[in-house]
């Protein structure tokens, strides 16, 4: 498989403080890669650096095109959909308006209408709530809305930042089932950042382990999950 995303020697800064120290990784077309790590390891920062949301240096190529240093909106227009930490809901807009915003850079009107229906197919709850103010949705519904909004872009690559955060276990399971289905049916590549390492390793095919802004370990998810130290530190058994 060809690499869709290639990251080489990526460093990121918050003000003068360097928080990512030259990490490198790649993501296969159609694959799911997860980045694991403790709080403050730089997982969210990695995603934000890819989208031009923090100051960064290094090389990032998407499908062969360099996207380092591009403005956030330009990265989005190249087919990278970021489901941000905290969900990024437009709380005072309706559910449907939120979804339409995901597709706002697209010009194919009919395709957008069809995708809207498809999203309501994946997430029937969102159809029930389509005219409701998005801020009044429950946490789980808002997370589904965030994923659906990202999919409305017809992305080549989806960046998911802690999609399980603050959700009930049953809802988390349902969401991960839907993510797998989306990956298989729509061939969307995914880069997943998760605290819930067991779930993430189950969904992903490749995993990277970050420790204080550096890649500490990487490999197929199946091997990482079998690693003694990872089991003890991140999986808790």
């Amino acid at each position, binding site marked *: 498989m060809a690499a869709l995303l290639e990251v080489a020697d990526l460093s990121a800064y918050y003000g003068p403080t360097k928080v990512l120290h030259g990490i490198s990784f790649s993501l296969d077309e159609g694959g799911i890669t997860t980045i694991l790590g403790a709080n403050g390891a730089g997982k969210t920062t990695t995603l934000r650096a890819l989208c031009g949301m923090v100051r960064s240096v290094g090389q990032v190529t998407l499908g062969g095109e360099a996207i380092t240093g591009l403005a956030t909106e330009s990265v989005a227009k190249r087919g990278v959909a970021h489901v941000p930490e905290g969900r990024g809901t437009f709380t005072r*807009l309706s559910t449907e308006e939120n979804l339409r*915003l995901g597709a706002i850079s697209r010009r194919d009107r009919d395709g957008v209408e069809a995708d809207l229906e498809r999203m309501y197919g994946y997430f029937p709850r969102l159809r029930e709530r389509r005219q409701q103010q998005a801020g009044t949705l429950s946490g789980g519904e808002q997370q589904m809305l965030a994923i659906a909004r990202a999919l409305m872009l017809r992305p080549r690559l989806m960046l998911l930042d802690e999609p399980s955060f603050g959700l009930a276990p049953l809802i988390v399971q349902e969401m991960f089932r839907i993510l797998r289905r989306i990956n298989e049916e729509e061939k969307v590549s995914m880069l997943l950042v998760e605290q819930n390492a067991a779930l993430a390793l189950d969904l992903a095919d490749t995993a990277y382990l970050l420790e204080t802004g550096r890649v500490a370990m990487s490999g197929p998810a199946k091997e990482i999950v079998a690693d003694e130290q990872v089991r003890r530190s991140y999986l808790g058994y």
Partner: protein
Amino acid sequence: MELFLNQVFSGLATGSIYAAVALAVVMIFLAIDHFNFAQGEMAMFSTFVCWALLDAGTPYWLAFILTIAFAFAFGVVIERVLFRPLHSAPVLSHIIAFLGLFFILNNGAGWIWDFTIKPMPSPFPEGSISGLISYHQIGMIGVVLVMLALLFVFFRFTSVGLAMRAAAQNPESARLCGISVGWMIALGWGMASAIGAVGGMLIAPVVFLEPNMMLGILLYGFAAAIVGGITNPAGAVAGGFMVGVLENLVGTYIPFVGSELKLTVALVLIVAVLMVKPSGLFGRTTVTRV
């Protein structure tokens, strides 16, 4: 009774101008979180452009449309040149920039077109409906209502309108959706400037055209925006009409206010609302967890 109705109607008419100015102020506030003190001067400057076009023999409604186009471009340019570089600057820098813009436009207009008072023609016929409300006043209210309806349709049903609302609400998420937030802010400035220009052109036949004509009106516009809730465009419009009527009634029925202390009413209103209900009548209270 006739006096009362007369005052209410003329209050609604001037109120429509306050509503337009308040709406312009609210649009900029939603985009950049600051009051634009130069909003009135931008409107005044555009009104002078309209006057110059009319003076050169342009038909009224053509001049009206051209002025709106000028005001829009003017607003966009001001944002790009002056406020874009300031976007992360502290609030004081913004205030100084607003004041600078205020004086540049105020004196610039005086320098180009002279400080003498000029009569501005009205596109509406002279006379009134049985002495209660003049045709010009009806025209003012009508034009502002049409403009509001157009704005409502724009924000509610077009994708650019949706993108602008998204950019004002959650800039970071908007960028992630591929929206260029910087240009949405510039567009907001352009639209606010155009809205103000409409207000200026409509009020100029009443107050006469001169560089200081918008001073009092901007103050009422601020009062309207604060009464209605600075975060709520529809509230600001309602506030505009309310302030217009209130101003007239207080001036007529409270003897010591008269016409000299009318402007004080706006200031009293601003202070009172900020003390009693800081979010305004229709505003949202923002709660921040610390």
